């Protein structure tokens, strides 16, 4: 067995280098304890392997043994399975989170849903109508009392119009927000594709794709962070490739492939429905979770009234617009078929067709500012009729000579007591006006409550997966401190080896052969 003179120094030197690098990484881990997306790193080491395989003649390897430690690379500790679990659940939480956000905006359209003690909403409006008509009934020939009724109707009309405007505002704001989100999704996909390209071009990956101990860790962290974000927008599936890149499927469609990515486009039709398509195919995006689905479902959700494929069966903005449109139309129908015109002899006026002619109290406002009761009534166009405005509040009075209150009683009963049928496109409701609004606000309240509940549940699960993932990948300062001590001691030991080696050489060089000098 032969051993070179300075052999031990080399082994100690590898240990010094390895421990220095390990301390560097400990420092890096500690520095990035709170860095978003950072995955803890570790120096991979192995004892230097000695072989005689390449020798021409068989020889003992004993002389080569103990060469020290080899630093294989700096790896990151991560579990792909937990990534998938977290992303799937995060995607679900984002869907319910976005749905509940928008539905909360819809809920705020109904003052009595936002605050059940409020009296300025639909139910308060109906109550005011009842009060005013009852005041009027006590003096049914007076303009002053008729004016109270007109004010109550005006209040009701304004409540309906305000709700319609607020729904429009919510829809516009959320559509704009969806546009911004889509821009961000495209940006994120671009960045992932770009990082894919850099990783694929990294020399270490290219030269040794099987080297699992060295990866461009910081790029991987950035890409994983972007993939987490992308999962929040839609359900994704990440497929790792041998060249270090990842392919990403979103809603079952391959959208990122190596350095290339697809993009989303958004359009809005005249009715306000949104369409989110893939640029490459022009086909609509098809998701099962994520905030994009939340936007699309609530913006296009028409519940049981859905008429086309574009409309989703979720009770979203179009659904609640249908409900207030139906309310407006029913209100106008009742108001305009209760108080007859007077024939001049104190009796209801009968038209040529033998039917009683009623006073037009409410109507549809046209673009030119006039009203036309023959137009379909919506929450957006409902207005006090021109007839009532031009003839003054007293238009409501059936007779000025006689206390005739029964028509007003009828109107009051139809508004607050009697059951009406409220028919939307696909569903119908039986009850009085207050019951109808209570049904509507009950529905939006249930929708919000359900979505918030699901959001919280999914967030708890995704939070749990996040903790599990952090348990694997997160930095633990105690652990790093312990490692720091370990590497420091190891470094000191390596230095001690050098001292010992030096002392050995001192013996060899300076102390051997002194005799006879």
């Amino acid at each position: 067995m032969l051993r070179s003179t300075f052999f031990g120094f080399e082994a100690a030197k590898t240990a010094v280098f390895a421990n220095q690098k390990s301390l560097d990484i400990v420092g890096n881990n500690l520095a990035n304890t709170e860095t978003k997306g950072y995955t803890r790193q570790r120096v991979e080491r192995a004892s230097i392997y000695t072989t005689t395989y390449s020798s021409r003649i068989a020889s003992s390897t004993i002389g080569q043994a103990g060469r020290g430690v080899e630093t294989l690379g700096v790896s990151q500790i991560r579990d792909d399975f937990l990534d998938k679990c977290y992303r799937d659940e995060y995607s679900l939480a984002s869907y319910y989170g976005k749905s509940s956000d928008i539905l909360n905006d819809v809920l705020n359209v109904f003052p009595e849903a936002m605050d059940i003690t409020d009296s300025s909403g639909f139910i308060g409006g109906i109550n005011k109508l009842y009060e005013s008509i009852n005041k009027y009934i006590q003096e049914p020939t007076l303009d002053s009392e008729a004016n109270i009724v007109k004010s109550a109707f005006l209040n009701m009309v304004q409540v309906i119009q305000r709700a319609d405007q607020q729904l429009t505002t919510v829809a516009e704001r959320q559509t704009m927000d969806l546009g911004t989100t889509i821009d961000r999704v495209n940006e994120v996909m671009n960045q992932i594709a770009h990082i894919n390209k850099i990783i694929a071009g990294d020399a270490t990956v290219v030269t040794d794709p099987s080297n699992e101990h060295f990866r461009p860790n910081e790029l991987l962290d950035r890409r994983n962070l972007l993939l987490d974000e992308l999962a929040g927008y839609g359900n994704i599936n990440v497929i790792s490739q041998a060249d270090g890149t990842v392919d990403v499927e979103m809603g079952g469609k391959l959208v990122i492939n190596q350095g290339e990515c697809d993009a989303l486009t958004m359009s809005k039709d005249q009715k306000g429905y949104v369409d989110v398509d893939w640029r490459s195919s022009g086909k609509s995006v098809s998701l099962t979770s994520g905030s994009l689905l939340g936007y699309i479902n609530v913006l296009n959700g028409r519940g049981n009234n859905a008429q086309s494929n574009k409309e989703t069966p979720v009770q979203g903005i179009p659904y609640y617009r249908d409900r207030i449109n139906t309310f407006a139309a029913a209100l106008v129908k009742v108001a305009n078929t209760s108080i007859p015109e007077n024939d001049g002899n104190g009796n209801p006026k009968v038209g040529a067709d033998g039917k009683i002619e009623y006073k037009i109290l409410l109507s549809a406002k046209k673009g030119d500012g006039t009203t036309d009761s023959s137009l379909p009534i919506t929450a957006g166009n409902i207005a006090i009729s021109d007839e009532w405005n031009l003839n003054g509040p007293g238009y409501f009075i059936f007779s000025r000579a006689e206390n005739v209150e029964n028509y007003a009683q009828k109107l009051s009963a139809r508004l607050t007591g009697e059951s009406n049928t409220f028919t939307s496109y696909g569903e119908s409701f039986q009850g009085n006006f207050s019951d109808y609004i209570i049904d509507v606000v009950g529905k939006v309240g249930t929708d919000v409550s359900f979505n918030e509940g699901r959001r919280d549940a999914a967030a708890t699960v995704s939070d749990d997966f996040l903790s599990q993932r952090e348990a694997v990948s997160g930095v633990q300062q105690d652990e790093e401190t312990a490692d720091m001590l370990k590497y420091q001691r190891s470094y000191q030991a390596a230095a001690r080896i050098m001292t010992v080696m030096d002392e050995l050489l001192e013996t060899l060089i300076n102390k051997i052969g002194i005799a006879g000098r």
Partner: protein
Amino acid sequence: MRVSDKTTVRNYLKYLEQAKTNYAETNARIASGNRFVRISYDVSAGTRVLRTRTDLSKTQEYYDNVKSINDGLSVTEDALKSINDILSDVQSKKITKAMSDSTGEAGRKALANEVKALKEEILQFANTKYGNKYVLGGSSAKIAPFSVGTDGKLLYNGIDVNNIIYDNTDGRYYDKLTNKLVPMDSDIYADIGLGLRMVGSDIESDTAFKVSYSGLEILGFGENSDGMPNNIFNMLTNIEKCMRDGDMETLGKYGDILIETTDSFRALLTDIGAKTNFLDTVEARINSNIDSYKNQLNNLMGINDAEEAKNQTMNDYVLKAVLQMGSKILPVTLMDFLN
């Protein structure tokens, strides 16, 4: 289990946020006195609150209606009492006196003048107005229902009351000469929470409170089998005439009829009393309903003061504990223990 520092910090912030949220929510509940105001917090209780508030609002309107009817009824009662006093006076004093032998022709004429004045008083009382309504005059709003025709006979909304007949089948009054309905004599109802229902544009009489009185019901209408008027005013006209003419026989007959008429008139006063009693009962019931609705609202959305006070103390304790925990957990690592 390996707990990373990031998880420790994240969880700690989550606990802190939860403690602060609970703190703020309890404070908001105590300040507002409401367990919740947003319907999505408790949809079932929220919708019941809305329904109860609608019922409460209607009931408060019933209460106002009852109060208003009661005010109107006291005016009606005063008018009826005044008419009743006049009738008693005419029947017990004027007729008796006129029929006394000691009263001479001049005395009877003086009595006739007094009866005439009293008759005019009755007319005024019959046209008593409350607000925009003639309380004893059907549904007329502008023109006094009772007037005197050129022949001295009483007209009700322009029709001679002697010619008016009552149709039992539809409960309406008709002019027997023209067979037409007596105008301005519709019933007026108020909703006092009896479950108002309508048939066409007519109110079902047992589902609302009738606030109008037909003048015909009060002063009488038509003629009896002897061709004598049933109407008080016309009766007094004839009594006055008998006194002037010295027709003691007919005066005696009218005296007897007047006794019956005064009796039936008192029944009307009793009816008013019964109505007032009924309204008092309704008012008490409405008040009790209002209390019950308010209780219901309190149960549905009100807070339990003792429980919230306990929550507040608990929240305070938890928040302080979490903050203290933060000072202990967050900065402490092995690093702190090394030299």
